[in-house]
């Protein structure tokens, strides 16, 4: 069972605040969905390897890491990288002060 405390803890991990109303609904929905997910425990998976990726299921050549030569190449120009920044000083992204509290 997910508790209100769990919702607060997970919201903090996920950098979400959530309104009181959202928290009530989240608690209900998470318990409903996780209750459904619990049916996975009906299965004996002791002989099944964890499968994080599908590429190793077939011989696509993608089952090993894809490496490219470590050579410099052009990247996104600085001004274009800043073009969508909500707050920037023209050189850097600006954020609220981090070090002093």
């Amino acid at each position, binding site marked *: 069972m997910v508790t209100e405390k769990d919702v607060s803890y997970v919201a903090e991990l996920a950098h979400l*605040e959530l309104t009181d109303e959202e928290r009530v609904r989240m608690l209900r929905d998470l318990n409903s969905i996780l209750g459904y997910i619990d049916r*996975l425990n009906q299965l004996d998976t002791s002989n099944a390897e964890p*499968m994080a*990726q599908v*590429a190793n299921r077939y011989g*696509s050549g993608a089952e090993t890491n894809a490496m490219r030569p470590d050579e410099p190449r052009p990247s*996104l120009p600085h001004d274009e990288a800043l073009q969508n920044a*909500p707050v920037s000083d023209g050189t850097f992204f600006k954020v609220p002060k981090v070090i002093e509290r």
Partner: protein
Amino acid sequence: MNIDLLTVDAARTAVLEKQTTAADLVDAFYAKIEADDPAIGAYLTLCKDRAYQQAERIDEMADRGDPLPPLAGVPIAVKDVFTTKGVRTTAGSKILENFIAPYDATVVARLEDAGAIVLGKTNCDEFAMGSSNENSGFRPVHNPHDHSRVPGGSSGGSAAAVAAGMAAASLGSDTGGSIRQPAAFCGVVGLMPTYGRVSRYGLIAFASSLDHVGPFGRTVKDVAIMLQQIAGRDPLDSTSAEVPVPNYLEHVGQPVTGLKIGMPKEYFGEGLDPEVWTAVEAALHELAKAGCKIVPISLPHTAYAIPTYYVVATAEASSNLARYDGVRYGLRAEGKTLAEMYRRTRDAGFGAEVKRRIMLGTYVLSAGYYDAYYLKAQRVRCLLAKDFDDAFAAVDVIVTPTTPTPAFKLGEKADDPLAMYLADIFTVTADLVGIPGISIPCGKSKDGLPIGLQILGKHFDEPTVLRVAHATEHALAVTLN
């Protein structure tokens, strides 16, 4: 020229044979969009400058008598999860409401290189999370066959645009059924290629081990033409596979005699709408008449696919969506501290379903629950893959309904996330296993709602999937729209 039922094939031929110009086609499509889209909501952004520039390029080539590229003048729509340089790209989210992408997705670039004209960006569920398009941060999409019903999701705008004749073809993404399910609901063809077949560079990530890119079209031939242009290795996407790309069109129209078609009993049980069952059975009957052998099979872990999916997909999403923090792009809400700025930005920018999935994904990855949920789901995913390995040892393709019911009403499942998740019950497994699947129209309900047939194939065996799809389409001679 009448564009109502224009196919990719016909559009290209019309431009090639100078029956029309690319610019005239673009005019006609924008006129149609302006007249019809207010009631449907398929498009979020039109990119007219870009479309007319491309049309001009094609028409100049035609005037000079240059050989025209394979999609010359074909007007297409692109789901708003693909980046388009200089054009607003929102992923259906308020958090990216004003995001102007600085580069093109590989699939968009490839289609434009092949002569296609991008008319605009289509509506979708926010970050492709949803099965009805009601999770769009901007507006819902209405099913062109019945405006009180959903078009399916998450690529609902792309499916509706083709169904309503507002694009000849379109691009979508499929993480749990987001191409095939809306294709079924809107009565068009939707193809999810094998994982790794099509580059995802420039696709806004939802769940990286599950995200697939694929086309919508009016016909099987059209999606084969589209796939031909987008398939293949891309150095910018390390998950794109080094597998040669066959000539798909050569397989469209080939006989299907002797092919073995698996019919999994788990997809024909309780909960299947009788009208869907009848339509799918009729399609199977046609395949049998065409010389296929229908083989009853079992995919025993089918009932575990949805719970597996909602652990894997949400875990990956919680990680992928961490990037939306108000620093480099997108919405920013002010806060006194950095952490407060992050929280307020994400609270303001994400919709309810996205928050739910981020929370669920964070929970299943958190200390103490990782083994019980995430690792467990990964092990079950292996069992699901084995189901298909076993099945494909005996059959060439697997045929199922695409969805248990035709399109449901707007609002019908909006307050019950679990009921909404179950709309994808027949499509999620292919995403988890990485095999290709197509949905083609196979009939209509008595209310006139389209019904979809799903054909699943072996990894990289799109040729056989397309061959069977085309044979079925041909035999049923389904009249679209």
